[in-house]
């Protein structure tokens, strides 16, 4: 019989048998069964033999399962008992261990939620990857003046000129605040936008009532969000109902209701009205920039390909208008390299985080903050992980006796590894469950702080389940891995006799190394927090050139109309009201950007000035100082038409050394040759924008009733609530009960740094936590060691060796300074965003390092003192 033609046992069952067979004799057993198979094959034929073989293997399954399961179950029970007992014996220690990890996990998961939310903006639109926003790329005299605002005829022209543009829609980018009345219900509404009919073709919103294709096709129509519809009309179908926008005296017909737009969109609105039919929507001027334009590309078309065709498009479409307006050829003016004008595209999904231009629609995300936060999240997880690992290692190290006993009783190395890994996985899973609880508690507060609608359920989506699994596994396996492989390799005699593990220097050094890493990270985080808070403090205290305190800003003040005079007179009768002034805008709010040139200067010398309209009391109210000339005066009649006041910066930019009495051409738009305005005064420089920017050149023009938007009231600081109540009463009387909307100038100005302030607050909250967690870890570690050495301390009744080891540990912690260069570099990158910034002083490094060390000394010292102060009789008696 040759092996080739001999019948063979079924392969699959053969393998199965080998797996089940006793480890040592597997081969021999399989061989025996194979031999028996051959006897049977010869006697009764291969088919019967194979059947026998299969049955034989199957019959042995139950006893195999019973056998192996009984043992692993017993062992598992034993492992669990031991794990719980150990946890219970060192209760505080286990708590520190688990709670620290849980806090770290909770923090980083919440930050993760935030980061995922921020990077997922506008992706809910079905065709998000084909939607682009067109923006105007403008550079003048090397200054970047790009904006998201585009000319009114652009959308139509894009559809006409490019077959790959499936649809284009314009959006009026100013969310309007107005008084809305419907069915006798009136509210002030803030979220009204206007858009072309194609808006709902391009973007995906869920219509509850109405037809998305025709909803905005006719003038005077509006689509409501579900919550607005329910607020005014209840739960029924409101299509066909009429809403009155009181400020514009206009009626709108409801043509549709959509589900509330998702919050993670740069388009925020409650009401979308038809753009068609509004006065400016039919505009054909290419030199006006009033709308946002969105395009939907056809399948297969790319934004890059379209963008490449836009320079030609700009020349063709914008060029003639530019020539008509300025008398200059587009190619000549913008071809020089010094100036540039063109259109570019940005993907819809990049608008929230990566937009090159600002818009007025929503709070933009800051990718730098996102990066910093992601780094903090990783740091916290790192710190918590190291902590956990350290504490776990410390505890496992004191279980060398257990390892010895287990080995003597026949435990294999593999089993010990499984035991320790399983134990640390149990701990990390417990920590994870605790972390989920912490998140459930803390997420609402965090969402408020971050101003993002983050909910617990978000964690079930996206990368989170996988991510959380990985974290639990990695932390559990890594922290359990070291003791598992290290301890299980000991010779039982050594561990039983000499407590080898505790004396081993290797892992003590490792643990110290890890503590150092923790403190280096803690140092970087504290340093970063210090820089941010100092900068915020600096911004808050810096002299802006005007007095921003105790100024109440009344919004929509033009609603007073003819009653304004009486209202102001009534206010000024009160001693606590010092001054009242009307204006179009205020520092911290939007100023118009207008071009001007001095009399006699050539057309190219046009200077961009920030312009607003103010009355004669404006300078007094804000405490603006004149350096030359005078401010507007009601007594001089020509002031109302041809006088302007500028600031020093504007004078410099206009190139006027003695500006008072100089004239320049009236601005853009309404410019007619030969019409001039005269500078009657120069103000000391004051900031109208955030300190991210340098002082801007400002031009103040006399207020006409049409430009009036705000009334500012300067009050005394004391008895503010009463004063406010008084102003409100006067307002209601004068306006016939219109809603009173106000803000404080200093708060408005502070809002310019809102994004930084919030990031700063989030950052400090989390960095405090990071430091806390690492201290917790250190405290736990030290107290564990102290507990182990109670007898030694008891005998010495001094600090003895423990002082020495403490000193050793601390002297090495000065190494945290290695974290200084990267921390310095990060802080500088952050500060670069501001035109005015605090210097980074060496003292800040010292302070941060000092804090870390102090915290370390404190947590170590506390425990050591307690250990040392213990009565030696107590500690020695337990021998």
């Amino acid at each position: 019989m040759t092996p080739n033609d001999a019948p063979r046992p079924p392969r699959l069952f053969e393998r199965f048998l080998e797996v089940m067979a006793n480890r040592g004799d597997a081969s021999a057993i399989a061989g025996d069964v194979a031999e028996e198979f051959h006897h049977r094959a010869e006697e009764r034929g291969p088919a019967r033999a194979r059947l026998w073989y299969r049955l034989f293997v199957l019959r042995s399954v139950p006893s195999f399962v019973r056998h192996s399961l009984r043992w692993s179950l017993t062992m598992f029970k034993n492992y669990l008992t031991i794990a719980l007992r150990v946890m219970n014996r060192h209760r505080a220690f286990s708590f520190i261990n688990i709670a620290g990890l849980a806090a770290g996990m909770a923090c980083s998961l919440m930050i993760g939620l935030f980061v995922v939310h921020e990077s997922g903006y506008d992706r809910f639109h079905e065709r998000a990857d084909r939607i682009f926003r067109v923006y105007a790329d403008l550079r003048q005299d090397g200054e970047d003046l790009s904006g998201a605002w585009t000319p009114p005829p652009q959308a139509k022209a894009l559809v006409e000129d490019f077959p790959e543009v499936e649809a284009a829609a314009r959006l009026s980018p100013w969310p309007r605040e107005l008084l809305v009345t419907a069915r006798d219900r009136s509210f002030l509404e803030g979220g009204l936008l206007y858009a072309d009919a194609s808006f709902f073709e391009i973007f995906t919103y869920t219509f509850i009532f109405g037809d998305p294709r025709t909803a905005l096709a006719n003038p005077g129509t509006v689509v409501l969000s579900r919550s607005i519809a329910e607020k005014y009309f209840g739960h029924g179908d409101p299509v066909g109902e009429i809403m009155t926008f009181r400020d514009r005296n206009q009626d709108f017909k409801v043509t549709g209701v959509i589900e509330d737009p998702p919050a993670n969109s740069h388009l925020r609105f409650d009401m979308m009205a038809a753009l068609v039919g509004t006065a400016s929507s039919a505009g054909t001027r290419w030199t006006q920039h009033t709308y946002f334009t969105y395009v939907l590309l056809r399948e297969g078309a790319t934004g890059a390909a379209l963008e490449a065709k836009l320079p030609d498009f700009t020349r063709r479409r914008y060029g003639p208008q530019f020539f008509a307006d300025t008398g200059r050829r587009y190619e000549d003016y913008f071809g020089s390299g010094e100036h540039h004008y063109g259109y570019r595209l940005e993907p819809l999904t990049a608008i929230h985080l990566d937009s090159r231009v600002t818009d007025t629609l929503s709070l933009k995300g800051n990718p730098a903050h996102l990066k910093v936060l992601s780094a903090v999240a990783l740091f916290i997880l790192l710190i918590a992980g190291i902590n956990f690992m350290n504490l776990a290692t410390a505890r496992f190290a004191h279980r060398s006796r257990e390892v010895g006993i287990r080995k003597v009783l026949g435990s294999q190395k593999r089993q010990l590894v499984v035991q320790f890994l399983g134990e640390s996985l149990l701990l990390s899973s417990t920590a994870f469950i605790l972390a989920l609880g912490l998140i459930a508690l803390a997420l609402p507060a965090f969402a408020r702080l971050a101003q993002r609608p983050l909910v617990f359920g978000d964690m079930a989506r996206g990368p989170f389940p996988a991510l959380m699994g990985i974290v639990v596994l990695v932390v559990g396996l890594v922290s359990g891995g070291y003791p598992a492989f290290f301890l299980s390799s000991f010779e039982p005699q050594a561990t039983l006799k000499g407590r080898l593990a505790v004396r081993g220097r290797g892992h003590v050094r490792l643990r110290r190394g890890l503590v150092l890493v923790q403190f280096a990270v803690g140092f970087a985080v504290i340093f970063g927090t210090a820089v941010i808070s100092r900068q915020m403090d600096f911004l808050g205290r810096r002299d802006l050139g005007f007095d921003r305190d105790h100024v109440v800003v009344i919004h929509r003040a033009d609603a007073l109309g003819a009653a304004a005079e009486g209202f102001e007179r009534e206010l000024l009768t009160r001693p606590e009201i010092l001054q009242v002034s009307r204006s179009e805008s205020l520092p911290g709010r939007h100023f118009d950007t207008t071009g001007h040139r001095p009399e006699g200067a050539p057309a190219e010398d046009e200077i961009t000035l920030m312009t607003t309209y103010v009355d004669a009391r404006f300078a007094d109210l804000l405490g603006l100082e004149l350096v030359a000339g005078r401010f507007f005066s009601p007594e001089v009649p020509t002031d109302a038409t041809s006088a302007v006041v500028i600031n020093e910066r504007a004078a410099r930019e206009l190139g006027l050394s003695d500006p008072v009495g100089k004239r320049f051409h009236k601005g853009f738009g309404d410019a007619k040759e030969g019409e001039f305005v005269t500078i009657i005064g120069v103000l000391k420089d004051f900031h109208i924008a955030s300190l991210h920017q340098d002082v801007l050149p400002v031009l103040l023009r006399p207020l006409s009733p049409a430009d009036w938007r705000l009334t500012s009231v300067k009050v005394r600081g004391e008895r503010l609530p009463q004063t406010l109540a008084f102003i409100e009463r006067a307002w209601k009387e004068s306006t016939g009960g219109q809603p009173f909307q106000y803000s404080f100038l200093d708060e408005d100005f502070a809002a310019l740094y809102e994004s930084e302030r919030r990031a700063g607050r989030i950052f400090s909250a989390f960095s405090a936590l990071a430091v806390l967690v690492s201290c917790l870890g250190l405290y736990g570690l030290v107290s564990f060691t102290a507990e182990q050495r109670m007898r030694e301390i008891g005998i010495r009744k001094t600090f003895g060796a423990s002082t020495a080891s403490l000193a050793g540990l601390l002297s090495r912690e000065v190494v945290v300074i290695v974290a200084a260069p990267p921390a310095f570099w990060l802080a500088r990158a952050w500060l670069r965003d501001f035109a005015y910034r605090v210097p980074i002083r060496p003292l800040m490094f010292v302070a941060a390092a000092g804090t870390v060390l102090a915290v370390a000394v404190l947590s170590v010292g506390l425990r050591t003192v307690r250990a040392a102060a213990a009565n030696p009789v107590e500690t020695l008696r337990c021998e």
Partner: protein
Amino acid sequence: MKDLNLTEEIVLWAVWRLEDNAYGVTIRDHLFRKTGRLYPYGTLYSTLAELEKLGYAKKTVADPSPVRGGRSKNYYRVTPYGLGALKAALALKAALWDKDSILALEKS
């Protein structure tokens, strides 16, 4: 010297009887013919391992053969020590089962 339990005694006996040809298949076969019981390999091998550990049997691993699918064969031989254990077991049996005892058992 540890006393043998019954399974150990039976398996060691079979190894002794089979002389140079005691391995899994033959031991199982031999025991089946003598006792009418088919011993599972699991029982056989764990008993053999125990006997080996006690020093009563000695294992030699033989070259693989094609019939066995290229697997090795574990031959067992009784050591002198094991022979002593067998003798002790027999002595115990003989002491217990004298003629009177056998007669008494048959009558009952």
